[in-house]
Each structure stands twice: as structure tokens, then as C-alpha cells.
């Protein structure tokens, strides 16, 4: 790993500058200043340990990194809660087996949900569908998607909004 001592890391510089804004944003998201401060500290740990790499938009990177950490934490909490409920079944009613895996009807529901998403995407107009594939499935950025499709970035954004709207209409609230 190459570390250049001559130049301060632009991501670290951005972090120090944006720390108050990050705490404000995540306080609203997490409905707790304390939880936000903890999360913003976790962002610091992540960026301090990351491999040397150039990041084009450090501000956007920090907010997105924080959002990912937040979603990971929500997922983890939900899993822990499920486990506790499962144990509750064991000790509460006695004899009911508890599994960490989703039950068979959960798996069926997940398959049906995937099918609904796929149908919603298939029902989109061609350009919106292409934008969805390139950005969401192939991992291209908005700019790269725009270049690949030969349209403006704002068109790409319009297509992606239409996609999310359509999918949300079909699958409803999670």
C-alpha cells in the first residue's frame, strides 16, 4: 500500500470539514444524536483503514459510506431481534423448534417478491429499463450510464426515478 506523506488525504480532509453536517444528517435519520455520533465515528474508522485510492467526490463518498453503515446496522439489529423472538418461542411455549433460516413460506414470499420486481422492470419503457440495468445491476455511475446510452445525466436520473416509482408501486412498502 502506498501512502503519500506529502499530501493530506482528501477524504480525511473532507471528513473533518463535513463532520458536523454528517452528524446533523444521521441525527435526523437515526432520530438520535448519540447514535449519529457513534455512526460518524465508525465512518472515520472505515476511511482511516481503507486502502489508498483516489475518490472523485469525497463528500458524496462520506455520506454514502455512512448510509451503508446505517443500513448494515439496521439489518443486523433486525436479525438479532428475529433470533431473540425465536428463542422466545423455545423458552416461552416450550417444544416449538426455532430456526435461524427463514421459514418455507418466507422463502416462497421472497421468490414471489423477486418475481414481482422482475415483472415491474420488464414493464418499463426500454430506455428506463436500460438505465436500470446499467446503473443498478451493472454498477455503472450516472455519468457512465449517460455516456453509454448517449443521453444526458438528467435523463438518466429521470429514468431511474421512473424505475423506482414503478417498482415501489408494484411491490408496495417493504
Amino acid at each position, binding site marked *: 500500500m502506498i501512502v503519500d506523506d506529502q499530501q493530506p488525504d482528501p477524504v480525511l480532509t473532507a471528513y473533518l470539514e463535513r463532520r458536523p453536517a454528517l452528524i446533523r444528517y444521521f441525527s435526523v435519520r437515526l432520530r438520535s444524536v448519540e447514535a449519529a455520533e457513534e455512526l460518524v465515528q465508525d465512518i472515520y474508522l472505515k476511511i482511516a483503514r481503507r*486502502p489508498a485510492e483516489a475518490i472523485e467526490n469525497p463528500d458524496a463518498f462520506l455520506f454514502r459510506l455512512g448510509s451503508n453503515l446505517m443500513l448494515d446496522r439496521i439489518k443486523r439489529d433486525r436479525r438479532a431481534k428475529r433470533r431473540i423472538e425465536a428463542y422466545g418461542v423455545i423458552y416461552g411455549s416450550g417444544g416449538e423448534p426455532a430456526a435461524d433460516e427463514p421459514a418455507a413460506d418466507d422463502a416462497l414470499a421472497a421468490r414471489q417478491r423477486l418475481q414481482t420486481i422482475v415483472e415491474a422492470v420488464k414493464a418499463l419503457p426500454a430506455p428506463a429499463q436500460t438505465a436500470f440495468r446499467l446503473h443498478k445491476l451493472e454498477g455503472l455511475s450516472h455519468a457512465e450510464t449517460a455516456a453509454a446510452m448517449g443521453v444526458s445525466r438528467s435523463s438518466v436520473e429521470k429514468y431511474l426515478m421512473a424505475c423506482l416509482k414503478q417498482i415501489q408501486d408494484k411491490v408496495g412498502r417493504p
Partner: protein
Amino acid sequence: MVEQAGSDELRARAIAWHVRLQSDRATADDWAALTAWLDESEAHLAAFEAVETLAAELDAKADSIRAALAPPVLAPPVLAPPVLAPPVLGRARPDTRRIRWPAWTALAAACVAGLMIAPWAWNGWLGSPVTYRTAIGETRAITLADGSHIHLDGGSTLSVRLGWGQRRVALGEAQASFDVAKDPRRPFVIDAGDERIRVVGTEFNIRHYDASLVLSVRRGVVEVRSPGSGNAMVARLRKGDELRHQDGQAQATLTSVDPDAAFAWSTGRLICSDRPLGEIVSDLNHRYALPIQVSGPAAQRRFTGVLILGDQDALVRHLAGYMALSQERRPDAIILR
């Protein structure tokens, strides 16, 4: 009036916020504006959470969605011409053409109706796959239609798709050095095990044997992502950087190396800097028909030096002599211990 989290207007605004902030142009001011909007009401917050959760679900299911959406892919030809020319579809089997015709008209109708991406457009985007294979001991220089060069080491397999929108390589069990022609509109993406490597115009070597990946960069910048975890960036490599990763593991290590060493195989040399003998032998076994086996403890011993990839007997003699190992020649293998 109290806004409902489920109202169309509110949902559209939450989606607009989400998409705008996923853009590469989003600024800290945009986030400050979102913070203010979310702080206005619990309904705003709930609507935004719903979009974000849905987007995360789509990311997590991207592979399944892609598989369910993609039109059936034609099997790649087994042996391809040395210079890439997209194979003519259906040329070999006349019955294929008869099957294709009605499907074609139906697809054209679907296109007019604007309901789906026609598979020809999708295949044009992806390009037709062409597979290259080398026998053990055989190396091969490939020039792609975009001007990129690939030098494929022995016992290697890779398949290439040159599409309108991207250039894509799937690396099987292989070692190859790449000199990629610059084309910012068509990123060059390589899938190797569970890593995705992405370049614009650069020169680098990839060794992908036994589910272990070694990537060394000689010129330009190479980006490594992990499709298994939301396409997260693993590292960005520059000249002299080397990344090592074992398929299935979360961690990758990044070190600074002499970039020429990784390319030396293409000029008939193997440059080893403190490498375990087991790994060196795995390299050699892609080059020589008679496999070399190293017994347990000897495989862990480390070697530093240059091996000339000429006559196998001379090479083994040199290696065994240097490391004070005994060699036993069997009809089906050379045993070092």
C-alpha cells in the same frame, strides 16, 4: 394539511431525493438540503426510508434480477479465431435460423410497443462471447478488435465480449497480461473469481489459479470491486501496486512490488521474490506437461530468484539444487522433497 407517507406526490419527492443523491455530482449542500427536508416531518422521513430500503433490497438482489431479466445467452464457441471477430450467429446450424425467425418478429413487435429491450440490443451492448484457451505449455498473443492486447499463459481460459457499451472479460483458471486500449466510453471490466476489475486504459497482469487472485499493475489505474458486496470498491491500484485475494474471503492485501516481475513470464522468465515453493510450482505446472509435486513441508519453503522457463529438467535441477531438495522422476510427475 398532513402529508401521508404513501401519497404519490410525497413518494415521488422521496425518490427524486434518493436518485439525486446517488449521482456522482451530489454535493454536501445537497445533503444539507435533504437533512432539512427530512427534518420537516416524520412523513418525509418515512417516505425516504422506504425508498432507501427498496434501493438496498434491489442492490442485494441485483444478481437474481439480472439472471431473471437477461435473455438466454448463446453458448460461447469452444475454440475461437486468434483475432477477435464476432461469430456469425446461427451459421453452423440451419435449424437455429428457423427457430430464430418467429422469435425475431415477436421481439420486433415488442420493441415497437416499447415494452422491453430487444435481445439484439442487449447482445450488442454486451457483445458476443468469444472464448480463448491455451494448452499447458502453450502461450498465446491475442489482439482484440479494439486494439487491446492480451497475452495468455499456458493452461488458461478466458472469454471476451466486446460490446457497444463495455468490454468484458471473464477469467477462468488463467494467467494473462493485459495492455488495454484507452476508451473512456467503453470501460474494460474483468470478472475473476469474486472480484471485478475495471480499467480504462492500462497495462497489468492477472494470475487467477486455485481460487487465488494476484493482480499487478504496470501502467495506469485499475479499480477492483466486489460484486458480492454491492459492488463495493475494494481498492484502486496504480503502477507498482499488487493486490492478492482468495476467493470467498472478505479481505484483500495490497502491497508495493516491482511490476515487471509479474510480467516476466511473458518473456520466458519467472521472477520470484520470497514466494512459497508451492505457489511457484503451481505456476510451473501451467507451463510444463509433466507436473511437479512438492511434499508438505517443502511447499512452505520460500524462494527468491529468477527461473528461466526453458528446459524443464534444467529448471528443476536448478531449483532443487538451490533449495537443497531431492528430486524423484516418475513417469507421471516429478516429486520434490
